[in-house]
């Protein structure tokens, strides 16, 4: 069984057993506009919660993406190198960024549920 959670920085995390898949939300891609390049970390690297893990370049601007959890990267979405538009077209599925083995599963519990995130977006607008 998998579970999805969200951050205030507009990332989503799906936890499946001991793997967390991370990407940016539909709301985030709408704000960024057309994505033309995604700078991803490499497999084997460690990411640290709340520290920068990627950069998304849209036509308009460069935006940093912060790690929602700490952990070790086990896979990156290599499709984004040739098709960065996946982030716009399928942000919460085919446009995923990285898969990690989380260091501390409890970090996941502190993130927002879908309902909480949807309310959060409404509040900031």
């Amino acid at each position, binding site marked *: 069984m998998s579970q999805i959670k969200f951050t205030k920085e507009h990332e989503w995390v799906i936890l499946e057993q001991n793997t967390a898949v991370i990407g940016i939300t539909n709301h985030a891609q709408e704000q960024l*506009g*057309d994505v*033309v*390049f995604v*700078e991803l970390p490499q497999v084997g690297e460690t990411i640290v919660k709340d520290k920068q893990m990627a*950069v998304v*370049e849209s*036509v*308009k*601007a*460069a935006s940093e993406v912060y790690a929602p959890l700490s952990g070790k990267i086990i896979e990156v979405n290599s499709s984004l190198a040739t098709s*960065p538009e996946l982030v*716009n077209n399928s942000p919460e599925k085919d446009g995923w960024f990285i898969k990690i083995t989380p260091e501390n599963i409890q970090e996941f519990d502190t993130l927002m549920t879908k309902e909480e995130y949807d309310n959060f977006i409404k509040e900031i607008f």
Partner: protein
Amino acid sequence: MIEDLRRTPLYDFHIENGAKIVPFAGFEMPLQYAGAGIIAEHKHTREKASLFDVAHMGIIKLEGEEVAKGLETITPGDFLSLAVGKQKYSFFTNENGGIIDDIMVANYPNFFIVVVNAASRNNDLLLMQQKLANYAKVTELDDYALLALQGPMARKALAKIIPDVSDMTFMQVRESQFMNNPALISCSGYTGEDGFEIAVPNYLVETLARKLLENPDVKMAGLGARDTLRLEAGLPLHGNDIDAFTTPVEAQLTWAIGKRRQIEGNFPGKEIILAQIANGTDLLMVGIKVDSKIPVRSHAVIKDETGDEEIGMITSGTFGATINAPVALGYIDPAFATDGINVKVVVHGNLLDAKVVNLPFVPHNYVRK
């Protein structure tokens, strides 16, 4: 800080079309429209035709016998030779040769029209009212709004509504009619494509927009696409690429300074500008094309091929959807200002491979005589 932002007469129309509104030069302007995105709007402009709200730009009317002579006191352009029915690109210069604003000057049968940038609108009006007092009556046409229709299908689409544009060539202007009201039309734009800029009374601008959009070839495009299109066309943006601290010579705009004006040497900033024409400059504007997909942005540092020496700076950059690569403008040491020279650009601390290239990145498709 709360800014008092102005709206163009098309504001409600933009909202109706799902525009994402952003503040720009004191106006609330559409960045892009629902259902498209900057890249789609950019490509549509190059393939068909796009309609841009450019009513944030100022339209200033100059009337009098000596308008051309007056304009030559505040610009280095040759306006005595500007024929009726023609338009010229120019700029107001300051005493240091800097570009106060870049402008389009059109000679209509009974008056001149100067189109100025939104951000400099008030200053330019004041400048002309003060400096041209002895030459012309200066009035801002606040009751007119400017639209730009750009792209290979623009001519056909506009001619269905205003037939006499069909034979106009690049930089021609004509006073025509739209719904029995005056329409000031110039064959020009900011995309590198064939197209027109059309000024009609404010209360008719939405009607004109709706009529144009009845044509399936015409779609709305926002400021986002306007910026990526003008960058591919190698056209500088005042405030980014040119400003009061850059000269026309540094910006490679010497072509817009009349030969006669260079000989007579009687315009603001003449000492510096003429010296730069004769002896060269410390910096020159060039196009920069990056070999990867990572866009380079304003203020990124340009280095030589070894990455050791700093040779310049990017002034604006984005992703060029037509050439499918990042494009940028910047100023560099003239020793490197040659087509094909390899350079590096610093982005997020990394050195990216890039090349100095001749402008424009995408060939202009102007209809010339």
